[in-house]
């Protein structure tokens, strides 16, 4: 793939840009009749910054995923089904152990952030279960600060994971067990609910929580995206934005999907300090299922807006091969990390 510097891109004339777009396009197979259209479109829109012209971290430097202990590309398709056993009576009991741990995370190449995590990763594990199962989550607090796990969903008051109810705040070195039925089906989330709330969330204590409907969902290439950000200088504004923690991770290495295959994104917004966040898909529209609780989409669109704690399921198929961007449609968040590419093959 040709690398174009921003300056060259800006300085280049339109024919040169068309050439660059064509060169980029040749990187993907093109035996389809719409290739000519794509090429033409590329000529027109090559200056939109889809090549080397997009914002990114300093060239040649990447986050050390190994040192972080997690990789946003792995998190994308990593669903934690826990350990399941049968209760007397045949019901499934699903168990997880989550531990809170303070950990330094490289949130941007060369930038370290003293994070608080569940299981050493941000977002925490994507807990996945089926509607009606019994869930048992053992929480061990290995952090130096009190924490809880507050699940979104329907459960008894004592299992709500907030101070003063049930086990309340879990002191450092202590543990507790949250146990409740998996309901309702949908896409939920969990996060720490200890004061000061903004800090406990923004430091990294959150994750996605998926309850599949009893009948399951249609087979799809399923992806989890937890939209977040990091306030590295503690001015209550984020310095870097991302889906799954590491900004530009899916720019540097696009998410590969197959043409015509159903793509399902479990999208959760936990972003602190900003009122809203959003998801925008290029070159396509998606069906949107708010909170994933209904069977009929609320909207067929290419942009959805979510406040903190809001989440939804997105479904679509790519009819064309090639690269398609996705990003927050707050340009500021986009250019501060929250953008990526789908690479559609086949």
């Amino acid at each position, binding site marked *: 793939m040709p690398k174009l510097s921003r300056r060259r891109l800006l300085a280049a004339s339109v024919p040169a840009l068309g050439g660059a777009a064509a060169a980029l396009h040749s990187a993907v197979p093109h035996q389809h009749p719409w290739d000519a259209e794509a090429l033409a479109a590329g000529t027109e829109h090559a200056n939109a910054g889809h090549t080397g012209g997009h914002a990114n971290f300093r060239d040649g430097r990447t986050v050390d995923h190994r040192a972080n202990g997690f990789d946003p590309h792995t998190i994308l398709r990593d669903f934690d089904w826990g350990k399941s056993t049968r209760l007397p009576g045949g019901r499934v009991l699903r168990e997880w152990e989550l531990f809170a741990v303070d950990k330094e995370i490289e949130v941007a190449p060369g*930038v370290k952030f003293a994070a608080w995590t569940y299981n050493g990763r941000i977002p925490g594990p994507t807990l996945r279960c089926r509607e009606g199962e019994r869930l048992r989550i053992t929480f061990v607090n290995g952090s130096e600060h009190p924490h809880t796990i507050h699940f979104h969903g329907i459960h008894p008051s004592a299992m709500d994971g907030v101070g003063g109810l049930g086990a309340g705040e879990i002191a450092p070195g202590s543990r507790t067990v949250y146990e409740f039925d998996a309901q309702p089906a949908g896409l939920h989330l969990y996060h720490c609910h200890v004061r000061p709330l903004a800090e406990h969330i923004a430091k990294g204590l959150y994750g996605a929580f998926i309850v599949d409907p009893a009948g399951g969902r249609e087979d799809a290439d399923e992806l989890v995206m937890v939209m977040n950000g990091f306030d590295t*200088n503690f001015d209550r504004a984020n310095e870097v934005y991302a889906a799954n923690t590491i900004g530009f991770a899916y720019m540097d290495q696009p998410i590969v999907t197959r043409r015509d295959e159903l793509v399902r994104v479990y999208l959760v917004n936990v972003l602190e300090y900003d009122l809203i966040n959003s998801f925008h898909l290029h070159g396509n529209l998606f069906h949107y299922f708010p909170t994933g609780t209904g069977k009929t989409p609320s909207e067929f669109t290419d942009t959805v807006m979510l406040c903190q704690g809001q989440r939804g399921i997105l479904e679509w198929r790519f009819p064309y091969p090639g690269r398609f961007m996705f990003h927050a449609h707050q340009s500021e968040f986009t250019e*501060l990390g929250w953008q990526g590419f789908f690479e559609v093959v086949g």
Partner: protein
Amino acid sequence: MEGRAATERDLRPDRTGGLPAWLLGVVPLLLILAALATFAALDGPGLGERRGPPAEELAVERTVLQPGTIELTVRNDGPDAVSVAQATVNDAFVQFTGADQPIGRLETATVRLQQPWVEGEAYEVALLTSSGGTIAHEIPVAVQTPAADLSFYGLMALLGIYVGVIPVALGMLWLPWVRRIPPGWLRGVMALTVGLLAFLAIDATLEGFELAAGGSQAFGGAGLVLVGAVVAFLLLTGVSSWLGQRRRAATAAGAPGGHLALLVAVGIGLHNLGEGVAIGSAYSAGALALGAFLVVGFALHNTTEGLAIIAPIAHLRPSLGRLALLGLVAGAPAVLGAWIGAAAFNASLAAFLFGFGAGAIAQVIVQLAPSLRDGEGRTLHPIAVTGLLAGMALMFATGLLVSV
């Protein structure tokens, strides 16, 4: 009595045990060095680990805008090394080069950011450090930094001549008039001169403080202005007394008037050096529109400086060459200052130079003060006070025409 005798004996040089005096002077120094070395080698015993995150401070000393790039020269004026990990311009990450290694204390680094900036717009550059801190730098109005080529230096020289050399030379044309006025009036003119200079000294000091606030604090900040002033004052005092001695040693031909005029010229020259720096840097930062108004303003403002030079030599018949030399000493530093300001502006250096100018002027005022004395030996007689106030008022009024 006995005790006293013992004390005297103690103080006698032969009590040094035969060691040379210089060695006794050096021994404490060596002991201090040894103690410090041991302390450092043991890593500060008893002090424990450093607490808290590193203190990261970078001062932006220079901003250069070229098409598609913004270049910042930063100096680390904090106690710890600073690693620049990422950079943003107006809340968007940008590609950049430079500052690959951590920047040590007082070290500088130049980062070159790729940004398609638009003329006339405002930009905020933020450098994101390895600890997540941000160092923000505002560019209030983006304007291309002039290339430092020959024509640019020529332009700066022309600017210096316009605002420094020509006005001073014009001001010196008052010499024939000053020569013909009665002694009482001349004292008034001298007082006017002192008033002009007093205003310049105050103005330069304040401007120096303003510049110091924007520069690296590690070099002393506002203290630099005062240090500069003291250094200049002492230097000129020394030069002046040396010149006086030489003259007395030679013949009685040398008159204190010529000596005073030279001192005034040097003081004003040092002031114009600082003024040139301010003009040059403001021009290269795009904060200064070069126009007739500015030049006319400076001409009026600095013409009064010419008057200050010739007032002490009103009773002499200096040669044309000597007059030209005095004019150049006073005015030409503006050219040098404009070059420095445009090509290698450094807020700390500029602040020091402004302080230096102010100190030089203060010294000149001290030298001129005796010439205000009337027949009864009073310095602040009505004519002198009127002259002083008129001088300050004149500078204030003409100063309104120029603002750099």
